[in-house]
Structure formats: C-alpha cells, structure tokens
C-alpha cells in the first residue's frame, strides 16, 4: 500500500511541478501557421538539366540564402528547415504573405540597373553623381544598401571585391509599373542563361522573354546606356570602338554580379552575351546560375504554398480549444454518471496526463520550435478517447470480477495487472502506428503522429502510476465493500432480482 501511495504522490507532484515550471519559465506551445496565420512554402529542387546530382552543400547554401531573404522581411521567428531535399519555409504572422512567398523561392530579386558611378567602400560618391537620385540624402554615408525600390538609387558592392562599390541608378520611369516601385526588368524577364566557352574566353549567353516584361524592357534600358544618356552615363569604354558607353549592373540583394558595358542599343532576345573581363569557367557558370535562378544555386519549385489569414487561423484555434473543453466536460459527466468514484479517478488521471502533455508540448515548442498545428490539436482531442479507454478497460474488468462474486478489494488487486496488460498491448499498437507515420510521412500527418504518440505514452504512465494505485488506495478504505454503488457497481442485494 505504501508503494501505491508513493506513486500517487510522486506523479501528482511531477505534474503539478511541470505546470508550475511551465508557467514560471513562461513556456508556451509554439503555434503552427494554421493556428496563428502566416505563410508557408514547401520548395523542392528541380532536376538539373545537365543531369548532375544535387549535393548537400548546394541545398544548405540555398537554405542559407532563403533564410537571409526571410530575415530581411523582419518577421518574428521565421523557420527555414530542410528535410532531405525538401525545403520548408514558415513565416508566421507576416503582413504581406503573398510577397513573402514570392520572395522566398523565386528569381525576382535579380535586377538590372544602370551604373551611375564607380566607387570605393567608405568613400562617399560625389554630389554630381548623386544628382539624379531621388534618395540622394540617404546615400551620402557611402554605406552599401542591401535593397532599394526600383525607383531609387542604391549602392551595391562588387561580388569579387567587397571594397569596390557601384552607385546604381533607378530604372527609367517607363520600366516602373505605375510608379509603385515594382520594376519590370528583373529575373522574371529572363528566360534562361548559359555559360559557354567561346575561344578565347568563357562567356554567358542570356535569353530574354519576348515582349514585356522581357526583351522590350531590356532594350529600353540598353538604348539609354549605349547612347550614354544621363540615366546611364558613359562609365565604361567599348573595347572595339573605343567610345564611352554606359554599363548595366546585374544586381542581386545588393551585390553586383557583373556590370558589363552596353554598346548596342537594340538586342534580339537570344543574342545577348556577357563577355570580357577574363571570366573563369566557374565564374561564368555561377553567373549563368544566378541569372537563371536569382541568387539561389539551384532552381526551386514551390510545391505547396499556404497562406492562412490570421482571423481564420485564430478561429480554428478557438474552436479547437472550445471543442476540446466541451468534449472533456461531456466525457467527464458521462464517466462520473456511470462509474461514480472510479469516474472521478479517471478524470484525475486524464488531468495528470494532460498536464504532463502540456508541459512537454510547451517545452518542445520553446526549445525545439515544435509547432502545435491543427492536425496536432485533433490528435490530442482524439487521444482523450484513447486515454479514457484505459480506465474503462480496467473498470469493466473490475465489475466483471465483482459480478463473479469476488470482493471489491480482491478484484481491484487482481484486475489491474490483467487490464494493464491489455492496455499495454493496445497502446503499443497505437505507438507503432504513430512511429510508422512519424518516420515515413511528411507535413501535417507527421505532426499528428507525434502528438498522438506522446499522448499514448503519457496515458500508459498516468494509468500505471496514478489510476491503478489510486483505485487500490480507494478500495483499501473502510466501508467501501458495503457501498459498491459508489464505484458504479450494482449493489449485490439487487443482483438476484
């Protein structure tokens, strides 16, 4: 009996301690996107056309670049994770979700900008050079700007030499859509790019899309640069003719990949070649990659993108919680009505496994970033039924034994090991199911499996350390034998009727 009491005291202390710890540490479950609103994208690399394998390094590099972009959005706790070759980006509670999703996996961050002046890191540009910039005052510090609207100037750093800077001008007005800062000439205007060896050097050949956005926009800019007009001043010298021509910088996230001279005013969409500057093979290939995919080292295809409005998300959470509370209340009423004192123990047992579960979920959310999703919540609601069943199996066994003329006390002792063995067998089957689902599936099903598995283990713990001992203690009290009805067991005197 003493051991039973120790178990009960220990498990109660443990669960109360867990709750106190959780409250004191301020741990809260980390809510998934479907409960708090936000955006998520699943990205998968496309098969490389040249049949090469996608290596781990490239994927990690892509994850890193995406993380930088998302961080640039200034949202709280963005998550960029890689599962095998799949990259999952989760951006909770972001303001403009659609833009966030665009930004993450797409090529839109590549821009073509005219070079206004060359510079050195830390040396301010001359006022003359800044004259055509609407945001000249912000650029006086000579600090490189990582991002700027298409209508503004920016300071970019050279990809190969960080000390070299460029003052990059705004795209001409006709290339800006309705002046809203979205420029037409970006990575989207490109169809493809490839690195080729053309004796004596490596070159990158670009193919634009037809029309606009595409080659038409590029030619607008090219004609400015070729004539060396104010928007694209002659900062370079054409090798063949020796005359001054403007340059166009290929800029990604504030880094100038290349700033070739533009000597021709009108290109056909597949005849553009970036050459000169004694490009090495890997440089040329990198540049082609960047042109094709933006800054990402491989092409990522969004497989699933999800935007959950925060109102709908919160609603889902509220209704989940209310459903759980009402469900629990109904189950409690039923249990007490049917099993009386045993029912009370069952509810307490549920409370114990529930509070342990809460502690673990909150802790995992805080430390591992484990998100509680709607699928997880449903897993938990479902586990109410399974947990109660452990109690019901035991109680029915108890009743059966008492019906077969056993004293309540001896029935309590005898039935528990038998019932527990049944419960373990059934729960292990649930655990196997949860484990298989956890390891072999993705996304929502995985979350569901994890929470179901957790709840199942805790059910076993609560049953063994609380429910069983508590009922033995209860049965040991004086006067119990006379009133089996308190245990939801029919009074023996009425059995004969």
């Amino acid at each position, binding site marked *: 009996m003493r051991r039973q009491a120790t178990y009960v005291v220990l498990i109660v202390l443990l669960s109360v301690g867990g709750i106190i710890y959780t409250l004191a540490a301020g741990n809260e479950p980390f809510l998934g996107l479907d409960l708090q609103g936000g955006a998520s994208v699943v990205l998968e690399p496309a098969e490389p056309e040249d049949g090469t394998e996608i290596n781990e390094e490239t994927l990690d590099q892509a994850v890193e670049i995406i993380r930088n972009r998302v961080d640039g959005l200034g949202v709280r706790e963005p998550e960029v994770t890689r599962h095998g070759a799949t990259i999952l980006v989760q951006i909770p509670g972001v303001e403009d979700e659609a833009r966030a999703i665009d930004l993450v996996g797409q090529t839109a961050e590549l821009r073509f900008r005219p070079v206004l002046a060359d510079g050195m890191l830390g040396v301010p540009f001359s006022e003359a050079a800044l004259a055509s910039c609407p945001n000249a005052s912000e650029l006086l510090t000579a600090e490189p700007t990582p991002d700027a609207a298409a209508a503004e100037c920016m300071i970019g750093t050279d990809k190969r030499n960080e000390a070299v800077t460029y003052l990059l001008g705004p795209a001409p007005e006709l290339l800006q859509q309705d002046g809203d800062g979205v420029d037409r000439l970006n990575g989207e205007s490109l169809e493809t790019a490839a690195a080729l060896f053309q004796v004596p050097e490596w070159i990158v050949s670009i193919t634009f899309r037809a029309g606009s956005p595409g080659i038409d926009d590029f030619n607008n800019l090219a004609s400015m640069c070729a004539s060396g007009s104010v928007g694209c001043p002659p900062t370079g010298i054409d090798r063949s003719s020796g005359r001054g021509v403007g340059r166009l910088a290929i800029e990604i996230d504030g880094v100038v990949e290349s700033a070739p001279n533009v000597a021709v005013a009108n290109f056909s969409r597949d005849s553009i070649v970036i050459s000169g500057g004694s490009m090495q093979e890997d440089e040329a290939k990198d540049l082609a990659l960047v042109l094709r995919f933006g800054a990402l080292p491989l092409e990522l295809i969004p497989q699933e*993108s999800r935007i959950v409005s925060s*109102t*709908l998300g919160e609603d889902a959470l509220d209704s989940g919680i209310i*459903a759980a509370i009402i469900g629990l209340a109904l189950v409690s009423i039923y249990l007490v009505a049917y099993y009386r004192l045993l029912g009370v123990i069952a509810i307490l047992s549920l409370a114990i496994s529930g509070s342990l579960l809460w502690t673990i979920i909150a802790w995992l959310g805080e430390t591992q970033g484990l998100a509680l999703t709607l*699928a997880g919540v449903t897993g938990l609601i479902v586990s109410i039924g399974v947990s109660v069943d452990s109690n019901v199996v035991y109680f029915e066994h108890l009743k059966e034994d008492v019906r*077969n003329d056993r004293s309540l006390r001896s029935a309590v002792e005898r039935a528990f090991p038998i019932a527990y063995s049944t419960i373990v067998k059934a729960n292990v089957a649930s655990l196997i199911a949860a484990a298989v689902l956890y390891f*072999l*599936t993705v996304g929502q099903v995985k979350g569901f499996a994890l929470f179901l598995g957790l709840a199942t283990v805790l059910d076993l713990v609560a049953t063994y350390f609380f429910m069983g001992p508590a009922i033995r203690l209860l049965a040991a009290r004086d006067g119990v034998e006379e009133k089996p009805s308190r245990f939801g067991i029919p009074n023996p005197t009425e059995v004969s009727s």
Partner: protein
Amino acid sequence: MKMLRMLYRGEHHFDFPLMWRKALLGSGALVLLSVGALLFAGLNLGIEFEGGTSWEVNAPGQSVAEARDALSGTGAAAGKIQTVGSSVIRVRADLDDPASVNEVTTVLGNFAGVEGGDVSVTTVGPSWGDQITGKARNALIWFFFIIAFYIAIRLEWKMAVGALVAVAHDIVISVGVYAIFQFEVTPATVIAFLTIMGYSLYDTIVVYDKVREVAGRLSVTGRYTYTEMMNQSLNQVLMRSINTSITSVLPVLSMLVIGSFFLGALTLQEFAIALLIGIVVGTYSSIFVASSLVAFMKEREAEHAAVAKKVVTRAGGDVGTRVVAKQDAALGGITARPKRATADRPSAAGVPPRPRKKKKK
C-alpha cells in the same frame, strides 16, 4: 430501460455468433458498395493531391453566385465555388502560377471587403500530391507488416489476420463513404483515416486479449467450443466497447458541432465526419468481423474441433450459442464462493491464495 439496466449490471447474454452471418453479409455488401463507389465515382480529391489553388475567405451574406460573378474575369472563373461553414466562401481552381493566383486573391479580397492578407490561399504543385500519396502508401504498407508481426508475437497469427482484415474493412468502408457522398479528401481526412485504423486496431486487440484470457481458462474444461468462449468474451467486453465508443465519440461530436459555429474550423469539421464514421465502424468490426474470423479459423484447430463435435452430439443439433455457465465464467483460478459475504470481512488478505495463472508477457 430494461435493456440498459441489464447492460449496466452485466446480465445481458447476447448471442453474437447468431448475428455474425447477417453482420458479415451486411459488411460484405457495404464493402462491395464502397469498392464500387471508389471504382465508378472515385474520390473527390482536394488540391493537396491534385495540384491547384484553393482560397478561403470570410464573406458573410455573400452567395456562391455572387462570388462566381466577381470571379468571372479571372482564371478561377471555371473553378469550384462553395460555401463552407456559415459564411466562408471556398474557391478551388486548377491554377498554380503566382500571377493568376494573386489576381484571384485580390479579386476575392475586394469581393469580401477584406485585406489581401485575410484571404487564406493554398497552392499545391501537381507533383507534390503524388509524393504525399506515395509516402502515405509506403507508410501504410509498413504499418500493416509491423502490426501483423506485433500481433502475431503478442497474441497469435490468426488474430493478426483477423485484426488486419477488420482494419482493412473499416478503412474501405470509411473511404467508401467519402466516395459515395463525394466529400472532399484533404490531408485532414487522411489523418482521420489513419486514426480510424488506430481505433479499430485498439478495439480489436482489447477484444482478442479478452478472448485469450477467457479461452485460457475455459478451454481446459473441454466443455465449450471456441465460438461459445468467444461469445462469452464479447458479452464481457461489450460494455467496454460501448463506453469507449461513447467517450471517444463525445469529443468528436463536439468538434463537429463547434466546428459549424466557427469560420476557420473547416479542417476540424472535415476531420470529425471521417472520425465519427470510423469509430462506429471500428467498434462494430471488432465485435462482428474480427471476432467471427478468428472463431472461424480457431474452430478448425483439432483441439477445438473435437470439443465442437462432442458438444453438438450431446446437444443434438443447432440450438444457437450456449451461454457459459456462471460457475465456469467465474473460473479465475479460485473456487467460486457460493454467496458473497457482505458482512464485515477482514481485509483483502482474507482472500484464499490462488495459483497464479501463467501469463505470457
């Protein structure tokens, strides 16, 4: 009421084997119907499996027709538009390029009079669904193997067969309901189906464990056929099955009802419908499908066949399933006491010692 009282007191003696034949015929018909519906109507797969985009927006007081008008100029004009819950409009279309998706989002936002961010949008690429489905199929196959192995070890292989047939029965019928009523299958539905599998298995294992316990005691007497022992076990676990089903259904019902009052609770509702079907079918199958299969297989074992022959000869024909005598039912290793003493008994220590039943862990 009388029936309830009997159930509560455990005085019921249903003749389950008598019902098995009818139940199996019914099950067979349902399974055929489900398979037929799956073959001819197919499943109404959500965009998660087929690719495309779905939008959800809270638009109180707006009708589907009005939404269709608003969307007429966009790529979603030919899409599927429906209301879900009380006021949420859901649009589904076979679009996945960002530009057209954004256009529809903007139009829907204007239509409902909310900001773009208040429209929930899910876009799924065409190959993603195949991957998800493939993974789920793999998981399912592994699950069947491992569980069969587990039951074969913990219980016995005939029970593994019975349990898996019962689980398959439940899944086919649940999926069949989705095919017949053309409910949309979403990842939440898949989760629900998997849960149903878990419930069904759990129920079946509880029943089997009881049979093993009862048969372990009674078969030594040589007086009862396996079917009779199975019937006795089923009667004993009946209240457990009923109570567990009720306590499992209550939270699910509250999900279903609460879900219809809230806007964002579609997943919850979709989940609840599948679960409700699954719990009912799962409880039924553990009592009627899983048990009858095992009884059928066990009756062919030499030991049980011999008893059955003896019993039939003695009873002189088919008289339904005999009820296990009370003194036998109580066989728990101790001799049954004639009448329970209600007067003050010393303590549990007063129970005569009994030989422990050999229990395989």
